[in-house]
C-alpha cells in the first residue's frame, strides 16, 4: 500500500506541481486582493459613503451606461475594498448564431460620485485572483486545468498521508544542510504541520467550482437546472423580462430596508435583473464577513415598486456545508490578524509544493553522473516555475509604478510585464548551468522585490505615504530579504562533483516560497 501510494504521490505531485505552485502563490496573494488593488491605484483616495449612497450612485451610472443589459451586479465597497465594483451581463443576442458576447471585466466606480475611479487603469489584485483559478487560459480551459490540478493535489495529499511512515515520529524533525534528507524533512514539515489547512484549501477549492465540475446531480434532480440555483439564491437570469419598460425605485431605500431586516448587517452585493423592464428585480445579499458561510442570506424586491418579494430560504445542512466550504476557501471571515495567519499558511503550502518538486529531482540525482533528460527537464521546469514566477509578480507591481498613469492600455501592459518577465527569465535560465540559474534567478527576484519600495518612493513621493503603503512596501522588503537569503545560502555551498549537487537547506525552500507573494 505504502509503495503504490508513494509512487502515485510522486507522479501526481510532479505532473501538477508546477501549476499548483503558481496556484498556491497567486492564491496566497489573493488573501490581500483588495489591498493589492489599493496599492496599485495610489492616487485614489475616496471619500467613504454609506452603502445606500454607494448603491444609488452605482445605479445612476449603470442606467446611463448599460441601461438595457440583462443583469447588473454591484459589489458595494467596504473597509478593504474602497471602490464600488460593477459587472454587467448583456442581453443575449436574439440571433442564435451570433457568437456569445465576451465576459466583460469589472468597472470600478467611486462610491460617492458614481463615476469610474479616476486613477491609473490597472487590474489590481483581481489579476492574481483570476489567474489563481483560470490560469490565464480562455474559458473554460483554464478552470478545467486548475480543477484537474486540484484533483491531483487531493490525490497527492491522501497518498502522501498514507505513505508517510512515521508521520508522528517525524513531526518535529527538520535537519538542515543534509542534502536530500533536508529536502524531505522540509517537505514533510511544511506538509504535515499545516495538513488541516492544505486538505481544507484543496477540497474547498474544488467545491468553489463544483457546479462546473460536477453538474450531473443537478441534472438528475431537476428537469430545469436553473431551478436549482433559484432555490439557493436569486439568480435573475431565469426571470423573464415582461417586455414593458419600467423605472427602478430608489435603491438606497431598499439597501436600508434589507440592512434593517438583518439587524444592521451590511449589504455586500446588489443584483438587479432586467433593470429597464417593468418586471425588474433587485436582490440584496448580506455581507458574510462575520460568518463562515460565504453564501449569505438574500432578499429580493420588485425593482419598480420596491415591494419585498421573497427572502432566501434558511439553508439545510448540505447547502450550509457547501457555503461554509466556500467561506473557508475565500477566508472573508478572517479579521486582520487571522488573515495574516492564513497568508502564512498559504506560504507554507507554497513551500510544500516547491520542496516536493525539488525533492523529486534531488532524489534522482546521482552525484557525479550526468543527469538523464527527464531529470534535466524537471530541474529546468522547477527553476522556471519556482524561481522565475516571483520575479514576474514583482515586475507586475513595478510596471504599475513605472508605466505612465495616463497611458492607454496600461492594465494589459502590466499583465504582459508579468508574463514576459516570468517566461523570459525562465527561457534565459536555460542558458545557464542549473545551479547558477537557481542562484541568479533568485537574486534577480530579490532585487526586483527590493526595487519596489524604492520605485514607490520615487514615483509616488513620501508625502503620499501612509501606514498602508509602509506596510505593503515593508512586506516587499521582507520578501526581498528572504529571496536574497535563499540565493546567498545556495551560493555559499561549494560546487563539489563528489557530493550531491545541491546541498541546500530548508531556509532556501521556505524562503523561496515566502517570497512569492505580493
Amino acid at each position, binding site marked *: *500500500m505504502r509503495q*503504490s*501510494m508513494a*509512487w*502515485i504521490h510522486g507522479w501526481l505531485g510532479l505532473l501538477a506541481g508546477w501549476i499548483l505552485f503558481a496556484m498556491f502563490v497567486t492564491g496566497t496573494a489573493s488573501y490581500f486582493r483588495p489591498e493589492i488593488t489599493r496599492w496599485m491605484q495610489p492616487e485614489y483616495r475616496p471619500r467613504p459613503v454609506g452603502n445606500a449612497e454607494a448603491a444609488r450612485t452605482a445605479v445612476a451610472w449603470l442606467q446611463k451606461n448599460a441601461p438595457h443589459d440583462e443583469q447588473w451586479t454591484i459589489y458595494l465597497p467596504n473597509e478593504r475594498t474602497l471602490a464600488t465594483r460593477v459587472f454587467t451581463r448583456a442581453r443575449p443576442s436574439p440571433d442564435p448564431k451570433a457568437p456569445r458576447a465576451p465576459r466583460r471585466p469589472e468597472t470600478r466606480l467611486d462610491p460617492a460620485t458614481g463615476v469610474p475611479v479616476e486613477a491609473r487603469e490597472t487590474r489590481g489584485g483581481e489579476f492574481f485572483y483570476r489567474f489563481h483559478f483560470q490560469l490565464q487560459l480562455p474559458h473554460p480551459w483554464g478552470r478545467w486545468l486548475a480543477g484537474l490540478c486540484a*484533483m491531483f493535489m*487531493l*490525490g497527492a495529499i*491522501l*497518498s502522501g498521508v498514507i505513505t508517510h511512515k512515521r508521520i508522528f515520529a517525524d513531526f518535529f524533525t527538520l535537519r538542515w544542510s543534509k542534502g536530500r534528507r533536508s529536502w524531505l524533512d522540509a517537505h514533510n514539515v511544511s506538509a504535515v504541520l499545516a495538513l488541516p489547512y492544505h486538505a481544507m484549501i484543496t*477540497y474547498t477549492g*474544488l*467545491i468553489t467550482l*463544483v*457546479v462546473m*465540475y*460536477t453538474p*450531473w*446531480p*443537478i*441534472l*438528475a*434532480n*431537476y*428537469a430545469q437546472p436553473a431551478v*436549482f440555483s433559484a*432555490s*439557493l439564491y436569486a439568480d435573475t437570469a431565469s426571470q423573464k423580462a415582461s417586455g414593458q419598460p419600467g423605472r427602478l425605485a430608489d435603491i438606497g431605500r431598499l439597501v436600508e430596508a434589507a440592512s434593517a431586516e438583518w439587524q444592521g448587517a451590511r449589504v455586500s452585493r446588489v443584483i438587479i435583473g432586467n433593470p429597464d423592464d417593468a418586471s425588474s428585480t433587485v436582490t440584496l445579499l448580506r455581507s458574510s464577513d462575520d460568518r463562515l458561510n460565504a453564501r449569505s442570506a438574500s432578499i429580493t424586491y420588485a425593482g419598480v415598486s420596491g415591494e419585498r418579494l421573497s427572502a432566501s430560504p434558511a439553508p*439545510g*445542512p*448540505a*447547502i450550509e*456545508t*457547501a457555503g461554509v*466550504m466556500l467561506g473557508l476557501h475565500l477566508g472573508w471571515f478572517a479579521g486582520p490578524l487571522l488573515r495574516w495567519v492564513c497568508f502564512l499558511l498559504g506560504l507554507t503550502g507554497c513551500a510544500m509544493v516547491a520542496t516536493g518538486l525539488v525533492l523529486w529531482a534531488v532524489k534522482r540525482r546521482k552525484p557525479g553522473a550526468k543527469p538523464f533528460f527527464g531529470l534535466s527537464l524537471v530541474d529546468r521546469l522547477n527553476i522556471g516555475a519556482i524561481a522565475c514566477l516571483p520575479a514576474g509578480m514583482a515586475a507586475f507591481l513595478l510596471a504599475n509604478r513605472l508605466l505612465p498613469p495616463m497611458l492607454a492600455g496600461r492594465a494589459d501592459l502590466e499583465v504582459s510585464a508579468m508574463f514576459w518577465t516570468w517566461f523570459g527569465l525562465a527561457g534565459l535560465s536555460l542558458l545557464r548551468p542549473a545551479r547558477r540559474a537557481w542562484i541568479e534567478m533568485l537574486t534577480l527576484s530579490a532585487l526586483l522585490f527590493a526595487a519596489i519600495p524604492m520605485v514607490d518612493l520615487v514615483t509616488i513621493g513620501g508625502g503620499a505615504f501612509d501606514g498602508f503603503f509602509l506596510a505593503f512596501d515593508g512586506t516587499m522588503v521582507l520578501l526581498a530579504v528572504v529571496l536574497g537569503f535563499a540565493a546567498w545560502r545556495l551560493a555559499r555551498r561549494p560546487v563539489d562533483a563528489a557530493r550531491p549537487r545541491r546541498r541546500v537547506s530548508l531556509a532556501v525552500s521556505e524562503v523561496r516560497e515566502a517570497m512569492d507573494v505580493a
Partner: protein
Amino acid sequence: MASAQDAGRGWSMAGRCLTALVGGYAAAAGLATLLARLLPVARVEATAWGMILSFLFYAAFGLWAFHEPRLARVASVIWGSAIVTGGAALLLGVRP
C-alpha cells in the same frame, strides 16, 4: 524481447492512467448522481450532498486504480461502476 515487454508495460500504464482519469471521473460522477437521485432528503439537499462528495469518490477511485496491481480488475470495477451507476441514474430519470 525487452522492447516488446516495455511496449506492453507502456500500453498497460496508459490504460491504467486513462481508467483512473476518465473512468474514475465517470464512476465518481455516476455515483454522486445516483446518490443525489436516491437520497431521501429534500431535493436541493440531496443534490448538494452528491456534488460535495463527488471529489472524494473521484480521489478514491483514482488512487485505487494505481494501488490494485491487476489492470483487468481496475478496468472492470471502474468502468463497470461508471456504466452501472450512470445507467441506473439515466434509467431512473429525473426526480419527480
